């Protein structure tokens, strides 16, 4: 459940119409124009609601305070509760006024919005929702409706509220890091026009003109997305040889064969192929988005694999590229920042496939020895908090307690003297995998409690969890810790970690609790 509070100087109640359909959201609407008192009064409904996120929309024409009052109110709230994140809409004035041709409001708008940017620039828990971008996309006349203003201080139209609700959801999924990991694509009439098996690699539509250019641009956008760390796979009913030929011989191709981590090109049912792709990458079906031009294939996947997100494909191909950005990238793959691990993602999964190759020739222990693994364990500093938070949000398998943390929460934990954060960087003879494991340990006198212990699936199954835990225990022993307590919270996905603590010398103590005395 995500707790979202909505504050404004006008009425935003109709946002409820769309947001209440999302059952993962718990909503709080502050009263009309109560934004400031709700923030400043610690006895307010907002304070007792305990929101995870606070969205503030201020209507520029109604906003008569000094902008610094907004900032100091937010800072006041953050001093009380630093784990909340603020989402601030930027300001927009109507396009025309009665005064002069170049509206005096333009400079006011610029002034307010640049103050907003300066305020948010170095804050991890204050974000801007770019409302002006929605106006650019839909148009002022479509977003605003005066009728409701005169009846109830409601500024926006139905369409305006729909757009705002969607944008809010995009920002929330981006902030929580709960985005998808893999985009599975069909090829014929999806990556290019026409059917390669019938027309041949030379004659498919992929060119500098017309429909061919639509697909060429589409490929460029998919490539950009892949470079941000999203994995790509092909799932197509074709002969593999025909599809390979397009990638090898067609000079207009923008994507490389190797940009795709898996190629399921055969005549099997697509849902089976998607399951195979998920298994080979150790990914859950709920981290997959499937795009296919055929409504029949989409419906089949939708019905047999309800966890997979199936996106509609536009009938009018001229809309393809805009649709891809607004309806696929933003809602499912939106991200706030890129980490080094993100941009390296496809290579890292490829190295895993290389590792699997030698694994097949060797027994397990000699395989691990062959890898020449080194772990560099350290205490992550505040600059690494984003990556640590990302690991807690995205790791589902070898994650003992599955607690999710935001960047701000990690930062606040790292400042506590009774908390120890650990992380490691993994390297073997195939390359460096970056920061791929972390642990959060709480100290209570001479007892240490493992709040979080996780290993990214990228390095899973190479026994590094034991090396990591040994390292943590040795450090804690040096600090005078005499006993350890740890937990395993079972979920549908983390069974792989169930027997970890017993295997590491811990004694079961009931209720998924484990203890160990340190000698």
């Amino acid at each position, binding site marked *: 459940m995500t707790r979202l509070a909505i504050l404004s100087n006008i*009425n935003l*109640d*109709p946002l*409820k*119409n769309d947001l*209440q359909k999302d059952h993962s959201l718990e909503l709080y609407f502050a009263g009309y124009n109560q934004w400031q008192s709700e923030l400043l009064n610690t006895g307010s409904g907002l304070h007792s609601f305990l929101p995870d996120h606070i969205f503030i929309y201020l209507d520029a024409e109604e906003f008569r305070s000094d902008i610094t009052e907004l900032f100091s109110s937010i800072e006041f709230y953050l001093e009380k509760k630093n784990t909340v994140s603020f989402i601030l809409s930027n300001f927009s004035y109507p396009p025309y006024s009665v005064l002069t041709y170049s509206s005096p409001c333009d400079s006011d708008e610029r002034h307010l919005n640049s103050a907003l940017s300066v305020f948010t620039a170095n804050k991890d828990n204050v974000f801007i929702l770019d409302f002006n971008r929605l106006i650019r996309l839909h148009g002022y006349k479509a977003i605003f409706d005066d*009728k*409701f203003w*005169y*009846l*109830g201080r*409601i500024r926006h*139209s*139905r369409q305006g*509220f729909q757009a705002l609700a969607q944008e809010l959801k995009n920002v929330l999924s981006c902030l929580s890091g709960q985005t998808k990991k893999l985009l599975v694509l069909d090829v014929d009439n999806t990556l290019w026009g026409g059917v390669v098996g019938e027309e041949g690699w030379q004659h498919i539509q992929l060119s500098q003109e017309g429909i061919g250019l639509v697909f060429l641009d589409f490929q460029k956008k998919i490539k950009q997305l892949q470079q941000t760390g999203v994995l790509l796979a092909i799932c197509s009913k074709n002969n593999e040889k025909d599809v390979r030929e397009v990638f090898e011989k067609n000079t207009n191709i923008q994507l490389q064969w190797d940009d795709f981590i898996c190629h399921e090109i055969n005549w099997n049912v697509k849902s089976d192929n998607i399951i195979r792709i998920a298994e080979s990458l150790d990914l859950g079906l709920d981290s997959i988005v499937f795009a296919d031009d055929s409504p029949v294939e989409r419906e089949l996947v939708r019905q047999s694999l309800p966890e997979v997100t199936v996106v509609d494909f536009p009938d009018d191909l001229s809309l393809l590229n805009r649709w891809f950005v607004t309806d696929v990238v933003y809602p499912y793959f939106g991200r706030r920042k890129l980490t080094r691990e993100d941009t390296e993602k496809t290579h890292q999964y490829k190295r895993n496939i290389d590792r699997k190759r030698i694994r097949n020739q060797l027994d397990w222990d000699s395989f691990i020895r062959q890898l020449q693994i080194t772990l560099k364990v350290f205490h992550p500093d505040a600059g690494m908090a984003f990556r640590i938070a990302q690991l807690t949000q995205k790791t589902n398998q070898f994650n003992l307690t599955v607690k999710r943390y935001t960047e701000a929460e990690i930062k606040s934990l790292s400042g506590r003297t009774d908390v120890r954060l650990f992380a490691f960087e993994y390297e073997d003879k195939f390359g460096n995998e970056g920061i791929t494991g972390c642990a959060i340990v709480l100290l209570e006198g001479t007892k240490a409690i493992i709040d979080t212990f996780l290993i990214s699936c990228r390095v899973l199954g190479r026994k590094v969890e034991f090396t990591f835990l040994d390292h943590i225990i040795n450090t804690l022993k040096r600090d005078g810790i005499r006993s350890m307590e740890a937990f395993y919270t079972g979920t549908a996905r983390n069974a792989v970690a169930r027997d970890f603590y017993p295997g590491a010398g811990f004694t079961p103590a009931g209720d998924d609790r484990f203890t160990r005395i340190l000698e």
Partner: protein
Amino acid sequence: MDTEQELKKVFACTFNVHLENISSGTRQFELQEWDSLGQLRLIMEIEEAFHVSFLIEEIPALDTFEKMAASVKTKLENNRRSRQ
């Protein structure tokens, strides 16, 4: 589906109540969320669902389900005539 049934669905969905809670006798303020702001949320949903538009002066008077249904039906009828 007839207009009244469809309208009941819009009411139920907007005010987050079960369909059975909406009858032709339902009046404004009987439902917790059907207050004056709720009225505007409702109008927005009805305008979208039925492709009709209400004038600012009509809206406050539509304070029962019955009046709302009658108004929607008239508007649908006018839309149909103007298309012919």
